[in-house]
């Protein structure tokens, strides 16, 4: 809009500030709560200004035995979450790249049949097929393992479909000129297709990392060993642990730690992410 009236500027700023405040307030409270000691957090009213126990809480949360019950230290959960999110992201990207490559560039019987089979699974989220999947994973002996946490979430119709669309925008002449240059199919895949899909891979990585990191139901089902719990599911468990009152300072510190990696990934890959979603020039 080219309009530039002071009153409009004030109103638009007010609306924006209100929006930011609504989103930022809970995060602020989390941070504040993570910086007070346990006793203060059980008194009313809840504090709105930071306290002095941030570093203590951080130490206790990450490494300490200050948590009630027999939970693993939070660094272990962070590591588990990170491992799961990474395995899901890389696994999904690798498999969907290869399957999209097969569907777009190779002629084989029932090619469209396979495409539609993959496409139809888009309509089946993890939750719908969770019982049979659990059965399979249990029979394979993968309960309480990183493989069990990640493999069932790896097969992905969305990513395959996305890469198919990306590959379809790459002109046929690119393949033909690579063939004349003497590049075989895998060479073409590595030297031409991968670099050309670089930004799309980055965008997908951001989405998948957050998807993997935020998994709740599946880890809850298949991990019974406290060493294998992920951070997202453990926050919920902390609230319910034993009969004692919840240790809000520790819980909030855990929540804060759980928020950090997705934020880092988004901020770090922002530029590629936006390019990947908007770029059309091939």
């Amino acid at each position: 809009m080219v309009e530039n009236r002071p009153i409009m500027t004030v109103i638009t700023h007010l609306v924006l500030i209100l929006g930011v405040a609504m989103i930022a307030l809970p995060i602020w409270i989390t941070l504040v709560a993570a910086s007070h000691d346990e006793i203060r957090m059980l008194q009313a009213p809840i504090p709105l200004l930071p306290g002095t126990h941030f570093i203590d809480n951080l130490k206790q949360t990450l490494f300490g035995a200050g948590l009630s019950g027999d939970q693993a230290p939070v660094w272990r959960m962070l590591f588990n979450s990170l491992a799961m999110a990474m395995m899901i992201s890389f696994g999904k990207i690798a498999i969907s790249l290869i399957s999209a490559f097969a569907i777009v560039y190779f002629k084989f019987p029932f090619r469209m049949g396979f495409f539609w089979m993959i496409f139809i699974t888009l309509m089946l989220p993890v939750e719908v097929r969770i019982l049979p999947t659990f059965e399979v994973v249990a029979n394979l002996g993968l309960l309480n393992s990183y493989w069990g946490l990640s493999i069932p979430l790896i097969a992905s119709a969305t990513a395959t479909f996305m890469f198919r669309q990306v590959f379809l925008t790459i002109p046929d002449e690119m393949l033909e000129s690579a063939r004349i240059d003497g590049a075989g199919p895998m060479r073409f895949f590595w030297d031409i297709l991968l670099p050309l899909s670089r930004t799309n891979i980055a965008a997908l990585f951001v989405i998948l990392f957050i998807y993997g990191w935020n998994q709740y139901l599946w880890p809850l089902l298949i991990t019974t060993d406290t060493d294998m719990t992920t951070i997202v599911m453990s926050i919920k468990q902390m609230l319910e642990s034993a009969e004692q009152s919840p240790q809000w300072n520790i819980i909030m510190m855990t929540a804060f730690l759980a928020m950090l990696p997705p934020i880092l990934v988004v901020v770090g890959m922002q530029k590629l992410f936006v390019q990947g979603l908007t770029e059309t020039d091939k």
Partner: protein
Amino acid sequence: MAEIKLENLTKSYGSTEVLHHVAGDIDDGEFIVIVGPSGCGKSTLLRMVAGLEVVSSGQISINGNVVNDLEPADRDIAMVFQNYALYPHMTVRDNMAYGLKIRKIPKDEITRRVDEVADILEIREYLDRKPRQLSGGQRQRVAMGRAIIREPSVFLFDEPLSNLDAKLRVQMRLEIRKLQKRLGVTSIYVTHDQVEAMTLGDRLMVLNGGYVEQFDTPIELYERPASLFVAGFIGSPSMNFIPADIASGVVTLANGANLATGSKTSGKVTLGIRPEHMVPDKSGVIKIEVDMLEQLGANTLVHGILQGTDISFVISLDGIQTAKIGEILSFHAPESSLHLFNVETGVRLNG
């Protein structure tokens, strides 16, 4: 260095045949242009030689080796595409070196060849740029460089100039021609532009609807077109066609005018006369009623109709000429400029 033999080539998609029994021998070092209207199968034919399309039947051989079942990379060819097909993520240098790298040619040899080709094409200062930072003409040069650097036996060009503006096209046309003569590499060039075809080709293969209409030198195509299609396609403005009758060497036009020819055929024919072969002549038998004039400076195009009929007629006159609309102009056409074609088959009748 290579000669190419096309024998009885046919291409079908499903049950539709798009190329019919194409045949032709191409000599070593020859520049062949395949020309025809869009959809005539010229690109398909080129892609069959390149190995990008499967041959349905017939045989292609390069240098005596049948290449029907060889991968494009093994045919010793290089191809320049219409949209250049440069790899957007590689620099100009890497684009040109890619084919050599795959062939496992040593690094210093690759560098030497890239520099050499860059000098020939005058693209040295762009070697470290990405294709998107280049103009159309520069991309075109890089695409050529990528073909030359491989030192192939055959160059294939698929309408390489159609994305350039008119001035650049003329300039690149000359450069391609010079380069091809200098390197002496057998080349096949596809275009729909008959001027490009006439200026570039040692010989032209005119395709129409998947059939080879004529395969000969540009001058031969112009002077003795083998069919009505070739006659209309080659030359600009295109040849005038008039329904006529012929008996004992005399052609009678639809309006009753008589012209002498040496031909011995008789019956109904289509007479063709090129616009530039009409000679103004007060006593000429071809009378044209002027409809419109186009002044082009070097010549003047007179659009009109043959008097007494509604057959449109174009005449090209040298220099700047004037005439009033509705005026009747008289011309004669020398016997050597009369082309006779069979009415049904379009085949040339006079020798």
